[in-house]
């Protein structure tokens, strides 16, 4: 049927390396998400409550992250900053780029989340004698995180998928490693097919894990 002989053996031989690279993919995605959630919360609060240069900075961050391609952002952190003598390693390019992107998207979700928590919650906790910090960290933010739980899960999936762009800035995560092996053996289709399966499994595991966690977290 095909005028092509599939050779799966080289792929199977480098499967351990690919799986190890998949762990690197997960690591960078999880780190970027953790940083992105913290920065995203800060950006959302700034956009809701502040005026002046900070508001301007936060707004430009969110709009730039949401309105330009993720690949452009990676190129910018990778090559654009070189003009100022700032050279990041491939790992840092992907981490910084992903964090920038995730923080921008999450900030918009968080903003919706903050607006969905009634104002009275904050005022009630303040009138009970909580400081502003206590009121936010113990009353408001837990409710916000509950509202944006599914958007965060989606963003986590996006972060894993987006980390594949690392291939284009020389980062050897799952895609970069695949590219490396594929160009060494010319078994491009076979390698990328296996990588696609690995990505699919990772995404499904994340969704499954998120669903299991949700049943534990949201029992009440």
């Amino acid at each position, binding site marked *: 049927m*095909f*005028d*092509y002989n599939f050779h799966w053996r080289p792929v199977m031989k480098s499967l351990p390396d690919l799986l190890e690279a998949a762990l690197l993919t997960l690591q960078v995605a999880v780190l970027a998400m953790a940083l992105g959630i913290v920065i995203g919360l800060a950006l959302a609060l700034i956009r809701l409550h502040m005026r002046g240069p900070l508001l301007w900075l936060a707004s430009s961050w969110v*709009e*730039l992250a*949401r*309105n*330009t*391609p*993720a*690949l*452009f952002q990676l*190129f*910018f952190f990778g*090559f*654009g*900053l*070189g*003009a*100022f003598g700032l050279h990041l390693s491939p790992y840092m390019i992907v981490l910084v780029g992903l964090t920038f992107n995730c923080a921008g998207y999450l900030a918009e979700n968080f903003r919706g989340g903050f607006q969905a928590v009634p104002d009275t919650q904050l005022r009630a906790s303040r009138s009970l004698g909580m400081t502003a910090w206590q009121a936010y960290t113990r009353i408001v933010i837990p409710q916000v995180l509950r509202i944006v739980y599914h958007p965060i899960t989606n963003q986590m*999936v996006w972060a894993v*998928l*987006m980390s*594949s*762009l690392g*291939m*284009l800035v020389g980062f050897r995560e799952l*895609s970069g490693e*695949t590219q490396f092996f594929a160009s060494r053996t010319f078994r*491009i*289709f076979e390698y*990328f*097919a296996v*990588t*696609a399966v690995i*990505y*699919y499994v990772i*995404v*499904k595991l994340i969704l499954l894990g998120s669903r299991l966690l949700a049943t534990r977290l949201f029992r009440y």
Partner: protein
Amino acid sequence: MEPTVSFFSGFTPNDLLFLGEAALRTLWISVLSISIGTVLGVAFGWILFEGKWAAALTIAPVLDIFRSVPLIIQLVLFYNFAPIIGLNFGPFASGVVILTVYTAALVANVARGGIEAVDTPMRRAARSLGMSYWQDLRHVVLPIGGRAVFPAWVGVALGVMKDSALVSVLGYVELLKASQILMTRTQEPFLILSIAGAFYFALSYPISRYAAFLEKRWIQ
């Protein structure tokens, strides 16, 4: 002695033209994929809605794959798979095929959401007024459900426009690839990336703002 041949030269007005042409190519491949993908996606969305378990067993998992594997892997995979089954697809054609299917996979979910947004009593009322099934779809479901999910569709379309930057891995010279070529030659990454970023931003930002404005107005 002065070198007679220089590999690097400054940024010239001619290069701006080169970038402009590349921007048009970005626009062209996006418009093509988004329009075909949307038509397909709406059809898939309708099948998902009407097909119940039959669709859940057939096309739903297939569409899910396109959402769970990084676009860049899909592109490389298809570009290398097409010759195996005897298709002679260049970078442009491969890019359009994958971007179209990717759009369709995303739009299918949006379209199903739109159909679900119209409650059953409304549709029964339409049918009991003597409308046929297709009249009900065309004159009741389309206007109401379409409005409900229009902002989501704009989000998908803008996402695909930004993701079209990934077709550069296949060697199609769209905006980001063109800027990469220029960066190598002129060694002025910051300037060139700013121009490319400004183009994406100028395209995406007004459209997303307009969609948000429409959403707000329709809710009232």
